[in-house]
């Protein structure tokens, strides 16, 4: 079937199978910032926003996304750059494979939670796994980022 997807404000007409998930379809269409991590909905590397909410694109039916607004990290490039500065300043970017999905969830959290404490940060981001960093550096980066944003 052919579907029309609005990605980062741009309309795409894409061939896909009815049972296909958004990750594959987006990557095929060149949105390589959407990473394939676990295939089972556990790691968060494939996170995109659908109508402003973070979802796992590996577990989101592509056909269902028709008529909705899809945002990848490239669609929030400016905000992502601001966060990236804090992440790299802590050295917590590491291999970087989980970073686009992780950064999108951080940006959603910033919108959704007002002044979250550490437990709330950890909880909001629990669906973004990282095997490199042990998470501590990411937490340090997020706290400093939020502080700077609220200043």
């Amino acid at each position, binding site marked *: *079937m052919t579907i029309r997807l609005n990605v980062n404000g741009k309309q795409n007409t894409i061939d896909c*199978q*009815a*049972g296909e*998930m958004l990750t594959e379809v987006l990557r095929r269409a060149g949105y390589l910032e959407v990473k394939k991590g676990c*295939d*089972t*909905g*556990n790691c*968060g590397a494939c*996170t995109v926003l*659908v109508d402003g*909410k*973070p*979802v*796992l694109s*590996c*577990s*989101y*039916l592509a*056909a*269902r996304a028709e008529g909705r607004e899809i945002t990848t990290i490239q669609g929030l490039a400016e905000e992502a750059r601001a966060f990236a500065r804090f992440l790299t300043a802590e050295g917590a970017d590491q291999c970087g494979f989980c970073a686009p999905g992780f950064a999108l*969830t951080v940006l959603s959290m910033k919108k959704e939670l007002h002044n979250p404490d550490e437990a709330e940060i950890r*909880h*909001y*981001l*629990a*669906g*973004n*796994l990282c095997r490199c960093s042990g998470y501590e550096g990411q937490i340090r980066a997020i706290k400093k980022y939020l502080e700077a944003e609220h200043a």
Partner: protein
Amino acid sequence: MEILEYARPRNMDEAFRLIRERRGTAIGGAAWLRTNTKIMTLGVDLAGLGLEYIREAGGCIEIGAMTTYRELETSPLLKSRFGSLFDATVSHVVGIQLRNIITVGGTVAGRYGFSDLNTTLCALGAKVVFYPGQTLALADFIEKGAGGPFLLEKILLPASMKAAYQQMRISENDFPIINTTSAWTGSGWRIAVGSRPAATRLCRRAMAFLGDEPRPSDEKIASASQIAADELQFGSDIRASAEYRREILPALVRRALVEVRG
């Protein structure tokens, strides 16, 4: 999963016809489709049918079938009526990106053994409403199914209730080894246990043992907790043995009961 034909019905009637007459399969959150290797001849997408709501009507709380877990855990209405119960129940489920996808209806319809939510819904005495109108106790539906194709419309909950949820997981984002919810209905106790690893069951003997006493003693709670473990069947899987599940259940039931009793 391979879906041969994908349909997006415009209203409940059309969805119902596709399911009833063309043997279509309702698609709820769709998160499990990826790991399923079966072939679905006709997928009927329930998105866009207005089934995303949590509202009060006729002395009940109504939760639409397409309401997501994330909506449950952040609902001010549910919070005001059940405290942190729903947050506690679903917040271990992977991450918010998955909880923004998976739905109440998908979980109930799937009658999944590992479900956290079905345990809490059972303990609250939830009812399942099938379109166009049949209503079934959720505990019975989970035990026996619907006996044919169905279109799940909403879940009905009492307007408020005091309840507490307890669970055990090897790690925070894993599936539960076992979970349990206890609730005081105002006239009696309800205790549900899920992830045994089979689906949720009510602990009817333990419930009867506690009777209508709103403030049972520690001793009575301890006995009831042991009865709950004795009356249920447990199985073994990759996460734990039946023996372990049986062993720790009394502690979890006791903690939930004590939390509700205060």
